[in-house]
Each structure stands twice: as C-alpha cells, then as structure tokens.
C-alpha cells in the first residue's frame, strides 16, 4: 500500500476522480434539463398554455447556457494547459 502511494500521485488521482465525476454528471444533467425544458415548452405552446411554456423555455435557456458555459470552460482548459 505504501509502495503504491509512493508510485502514484494519490492527491492528483483523487482530484481527477472527483472532478471528472462531478463534471461528467453535471454535463449530462444540465443538457438533459435543457432538452426537457425545450420539449415541454414546445408541447405547452401547442396547447396554448403560454405561461408554463415560458417557464420551461427559461429552463431550456438556462440548461443550454450552462452547457455552452461548460464548453467554453473546457476550451479554456485546452488552450491554457
């Protein structure tokens, strides 16, 4: 165990595991919320229920915004490493 701890950078490995887990799950969640908001909003607009449609559209916009934010952050990581 001590040998393994000497060979691997356990701090970097642990940070890689938790940041990767959080980032991966967060991307799936925010884009799913964007898709959910968009499809629900379209359904409600067709039924002329404009107020809830607007709320779901706002959810979609937030989800897309968060996804694009993640993409921009990722590009920043790629270009600055």
């Amino acid at each position, binding site marked *: 165990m001590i040998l*393994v701890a*000497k*060979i*691997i*950078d356990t701090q*970097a*490995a642990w*940070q*890689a*595991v938790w*940041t*990767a*887990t*959080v*980032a*991966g*799950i*967060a*991307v*799936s*969640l925010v*884009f*799913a*919320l*964007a*898709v*959910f908001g*968009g*499809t*629900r909003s*379209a*359904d409600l607009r067709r039924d002329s229920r404009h107020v809830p449609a607007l709320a779901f559209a706002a959810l979609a916009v937030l989800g897309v915004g968060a*996804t694009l934010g*993640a*993409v921009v952050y*990722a*590009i920043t*990581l*790629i*270009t*600055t*490493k």
Partner: protein
Amino acid sequence: MAADIILVIVVITALAFDFTNGFHDTANVVATSISTRAMPPRVAVGFAAILNFVGAFLSLKVAATIATDIVDAGAITQTVVFAGLIGAIAWNLATWYFGLPSSSSHALIGGLVGAAFAAQGSAAINGDGLLGKVVLPALMAPPLAFVVAGVGIVIVYAVVGRQKPGPVNRSYRHGQILSSGLLALSHGTNDAQKTMGIISLALVAHGTINPDHFLPDWVVVSSATAIALGTYTGGWRIIRTMGSRIIKMDPAQGFAAQGAGASVILAASHAGYPLSTTHVISGAVMGAGAAKRFSAVRWGVAGNIAMAWVLTIPAAAIIGGVVYGVISLFGASSAVGPVVVSLLIIAASAALFLRRAQGRGGIEATA
C-alpha cells in the same frame, strides 16, 4: 551524411505515426455521432479532422515531454526513437486490422520503452514512472468513465424519459456535435504534440536546434496536417466497433458517452492526471449501454478490446526492441538499418491494406 539521412527518416516516420494516430483515434471522436446519425460519416470525419488540425496549434507546452519519467533521457537516441515509432505504428496497424480501439499513446510509450531497453538495458527504464504514469491511469480510466457515463444516462432517462422521442433525439444529436467537437479539439491538442515532441527530440539530437529553441513552424504545421489527414482518412473498422459493435446506442446514450468522456478527459488532465482518450471513450460507451440494460453490452467485444489494451505496451515494446536489434546489425550510426526497416514496414503496411481492401483475413472484433 548518415545522421542527416537518419534524421529525415525519423521525421517522416514520426509523421507516419501521427497519421496512424489520427486514423486510429478518429473512432473516439466520431463513432457515436455516426452511429446515432448525428452527422453523416464523411461530414463527421471532416469536422473531426478540421478540429484536430486547429487543436494542434492551441498549446505547445507538452511538446517536449514525451516519455519523460518513463525512459532515461540519456538513452533516447535517433535510432531508439525510430525503433519506438515503428513499434507504435506496427501496433496501431495491427489493432486497426482487427478493428480494435487501443491507445496510440501507450503504443508509443511501449515502443520507446522496448527500444530503450534493447539499447541500454533495464537501467534505461523507470519502472515506477511506467507504473504510476501509464499503467495505473490505464486501470483507472475505463471504470471511471463507465460509472460517470452510466450515472449520466440514468439521470438523462429520468429527466427526459417520458418526453416524445423525436424532439429528444434531435436535441441529443445537436448536443453530440458539441461534445464530439470538444473531443476532436482536445485530441488534436494532446496527440499532435507527441509528434512535435518526437521531431523536436530528433532535431535536438541531430544538433539542428538547441533544447531551448522554439519549435520550428514546419514541425507544428506538418504534425497538425498529418494528424488531420489521418483523422479524415478515418479508421472505419474501429469506428464500426466503437459505434455499433459494443452497444446499439440511441442519441442520448451517444451524448452521455461523449459528454461524460470529454468531461472525464479534461477534468483529469486539469488535475494533472492525463488519461487515455481511447480508454475513457470505450469505458463511457460501455457504461452508457450497461446502465440502460446490462446485457445490451456485447461483453465479448468488450473483452477483446480489453485484451488489446493489456497487450498494447508489451507488444509495442517487443516490436520496438526487435527493430532496434535489427538496426544494430547494420551498425548503430549507420543509415542502412533504418532504410531497410522503413522499406519493410512500408511493404507490410501495403500488404495489410490490400488484404483488408480485398476483405480477407483477421479476427473481427465481434462478440
């Protein structure tokens, strides 16, 4: 004169490796997008090729760090680099022939380790570096991506599972364009730099540039072009394995695999723990499939892929070591050895491509 010829051969071989790297790793970027019809095949590989090309120019900081901490810097000569590259190219071509995704970085490291071992013995190899920087991350990457993509697709189905499939699928296809673009950019940045690093090592060893010199523009442009051309050529056999032989995926699974994969690669790299793109994306594809239904994953195909991963470093090392031995027969500083080996690998590659074009031979990566 001999040193000049060897330098030219090493540069051409490094660019050939870069081409096979792009060709081999196209699948990581485009397989899920093609499989879910997010993009037509030719558009997908063209898109990936352009972003690989652009990515190669984005950062040059890791260009000089190939195999440091793994192989003793004093053991790296032009012939060691050449033999290592041949080991990596041979393994990339062999795994392409069988349609198996495997890590080009591991093949390169394996080739260099084998060649350095043949040249200088075990003292040239840093076993702890190999274990800590290569083997353990390789063991960690697939399960991590598997779990992240699996949890991701469970969340996706919980959120959008009751919506109409048509608009949901369309949205996820658009999302896949973003996630595959990100993967292509990241791949170009990481992998073209390996070639730049190899060429710069050869130029320093030859005395053309000094170690503090900036990379010449032609090195950057030629490396970017080689990886982009390789990507555009497309390793269709591996694309088929990644895109449809491991699981039959829907667009949401494709996005979960790519999105989780890209997040894992970038987050781990940011934490100072770079992981293999191939291992991460393959693990993510399996995770996105298994979370929907465990039996949806063709575990026989997954087993063949895992076997290729296990064999990558030893096989490339053996080839690299044997190639170094063959070159040594002609004299360590003679150009005859590299010329003979280059002709042999060109002939073997041509035979492999012809055989494959005629649709013969090989074990398929089927279940």
